[in-house]
């Protein structure tokens, strides 16, 4: 029985509790480190605990109890850990455990939790009468849906419209990128010319060595709505148009910028999966009389599905959450939802409302991605490949 069998057994049996126990162990270590190194960082947590109306001692008691329980639970699975440490060495094993838990706790969980916490508080700069800054409230979420109290509309039409438009536009950008990238990925992956293809891939990557905002400005110059703009200039010189066309206000520049910003994230996952497709399968299908559309529909696309899903997820998530391109390339009349978030944080200094808006966008994006994954029968595990 090799180690891989043990690990797969570990995963198969879905020892969720065990993972929780390990998590508690490292949470404990990190809390102790935090108390020793920077006790002032604990203040907000203590505040939260007190916000529940519980004494801090009681909470510590619960933590210690959990810790003891988790120690016993972990000892039950001694052999798995023994094996992990035997394979990696005690020092390396400990470092791995520590790094992974640090990553999960400090880089994933705590930022999200603190955002969530912010979003559930009122903004201390403009409290309603009788409201306390440390109390929990849903008013920030209510504001997104219903608007300010006493407004003439029943719903916050402006913000909701921006929200829906952002989601739909991000979907459109995703689909546009898919249509552009699939043939390109297929060509790159299945063509035999090694050197030429590598050169093409490098040419695709080079523009991404430049900062995203600078790239957005470069597109702004290309699409500028005057004879100084590259496209307008050329078209006017050639006599195709008399008046400069306003690419910016027509949102063409915005969609081009968003599509361009994340096109590689669509291309590379697809390129990778299509490259792993056995060329003989294409030839076999062709030998049996299949047309090119059928070969793609029945052989290539089913094989490439995880890559397509992975690329679409990334492009959708990132373009829904993009700020640079909308800020630089967006027309005056079209707001992106992230610009609203930005306004809350930077314009009105209302971090609480900004956090609420950001969380709504995040949750909506995740739900949409999961929904489409369900429809197209893609597993979460495939995307990570």
């Amino acid at each position: 029985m090799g180690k891989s069998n043990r690990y797969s057994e570990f995963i198969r049996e879905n020892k969720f509790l065990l993972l929780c126990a390990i998590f508690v162990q490292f949470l404990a270590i990190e809390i102790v480190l935090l108390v020793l190194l920077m006790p002032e960082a604990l203040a907000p947590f203590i505040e939260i605990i007190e916000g529940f109306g519980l004494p801090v001692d009681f909470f510590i008691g619960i933590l210690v109890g959990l810790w003891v329980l988790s120690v016993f639970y972990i000892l039950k699975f001694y052999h798995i850990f023994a094996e992990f440490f035997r394979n990696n060495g005690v020092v390396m094993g400990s470092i791995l455990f520590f790094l992974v838990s640090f990553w999960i706790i400090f880089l994933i969980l705590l930022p999200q939790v603190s955002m969530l916490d912010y979003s559930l508080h009122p903004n201390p700069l403009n409290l309603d009468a009788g409201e306390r800054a440390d109390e929990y409230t849903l008013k920030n979420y209510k504001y997104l849906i219903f608007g300010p109290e006493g407004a003439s509309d029943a719903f916050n039409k402006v913000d909701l419209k921006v929200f829906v438009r952002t989601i739909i536009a991000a979907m459109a950008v995703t689909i546009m990128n898919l249509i552009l990238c699939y043939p390109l990925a297929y060509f790159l992956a299945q063509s035999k010319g090694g050197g030429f293809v590598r050169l093409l891939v490098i040419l695709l990557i080079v523009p991404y060595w430049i900062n995203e905002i600078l790239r957005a400005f470069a597109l702004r110059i290309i699409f500028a709505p005057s004879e100084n703009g590259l496209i307008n200039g050329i078209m006017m010189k050639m006599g195709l148009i008399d008046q400069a066309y306003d690419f910016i206000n027509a949102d063409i520049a915005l969609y081009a910028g968003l599509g361009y910003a994340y096109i590689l994230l669509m291309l590379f996952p697809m390129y990778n999966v299509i490259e792993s497709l056995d060329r003989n399968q294409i030839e076999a299908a062709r030998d049996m009389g299949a047309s090119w559309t059928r070969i793609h529909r029945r052989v290539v696309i089913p094989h490439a599905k995880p890559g397509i899903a992975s690329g679409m997820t990334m492009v959708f998530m990132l373009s829904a959450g993009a700020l640079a391109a909308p800020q630089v390339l967006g027309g005056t009349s079209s707001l992106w939802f992230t610009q609203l978030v930005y306004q809350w944080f930077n314009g009105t200094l209302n971090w609480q409302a900004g956090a609420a808006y950001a969380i709504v966008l995040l949750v909506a994006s995740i739900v949409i991605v999961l929904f489409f994954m369900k429809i197209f029968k893609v597993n979460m595990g495939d995307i990570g490949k």
Partner: protein
Amino acid sequence: MSSGVDVNLENIWIKFGDFVAVREANVNIKGGDFFSFLGPSGCGKTTILRAVSGFLNPSEGRVLIGGKDMAGLGPNKRPTALIFQNLALFPLMKIWENITFSMEVAGASAVERRKRADELLDMIALPGQGDKFPSELSGGQKQRVAIARALCAEPDVLLLDEPLSALDLKLRQHMRTELREIQQRVGITFIYITHDQGEALTMSDSVAVMRAGVIDQIGDGHAVYDTPATPFVASFVGENNVFRGKVSAINGDEATITSNRSGELLSKITPTAVGKMKVGDDAMMFVRPEMLQMGEGDAKSTISAKVLNEEFEGNTYSIYLEGEGGKQIKMAMPNLGNDPHKAKGDMVSFNYNANNAVVMPAGDLASE
């Protein structure tokens, strides 16, 4: 099932840039035959198969299937079906969908396809496995599914590109028999590519032996094994002992060579070289290990040598001998229950029947 049709390759040349992959191939395959191309890797046999299936066009010459010129017809338009070396089953389709893919392409309904798949699954002795995926089958089962998939299109010619090479020895031997049986049952022309002489000899009606783009010999198994046309064929197909020398006498279809290290040796001239050799020519004589026997024989077919080593291989003993001047000779004796048991270093004499040895003009041997 359609009956077999002839396949004719007329003066085929296939070039990739400056590289000539196939040179002047002329092959006439009779309808319903099991025809093999045998050769080492890189000899151009797969290239020929791709030209027959339509995946590439010969630079010169014509491919005729059933008398019809195939020029300009793609693989999907030819009455051929190809079985790939790695089988190329579609991993994301069920077995029955795999088998009937050609019917799906033709627009057959799912009910029809399912029915046909079940018939074919019965034929390949995998009844009821239609709903599995290829990954759930064993190597031999996948092999049979690939055959069924190719036969489903009812091709006139089935092309097989080393389909047994991935299987283990036992299964390979079993599949040889099975392939031959299937071929006889469906009666269509099989063109088989292999580097394994055992496969070629056991299954084929005819074998073409290829070397570096050139077809050296076409004939049935006996012709290729017993009367090889060139030194390459003699050394590539099966094992052989080669004796180099000069022709010292010719008598009809028999010749004597003065070998470099083993004296005067008498043998038949291989049929294709009869009348083309003359005294003084460089020649090569071949005697198979199993054609050698211990003891003195005729003066011109007796060689003496020192025993180097003896290997027991179950059904045979291989005895490695060192003749005059370090000449390596291998001898094979059937295991008849009595160990020949020659001590290392013993000097022995052995002989062969001149009818079982062939001589031909010197040429390139197959590299080891």
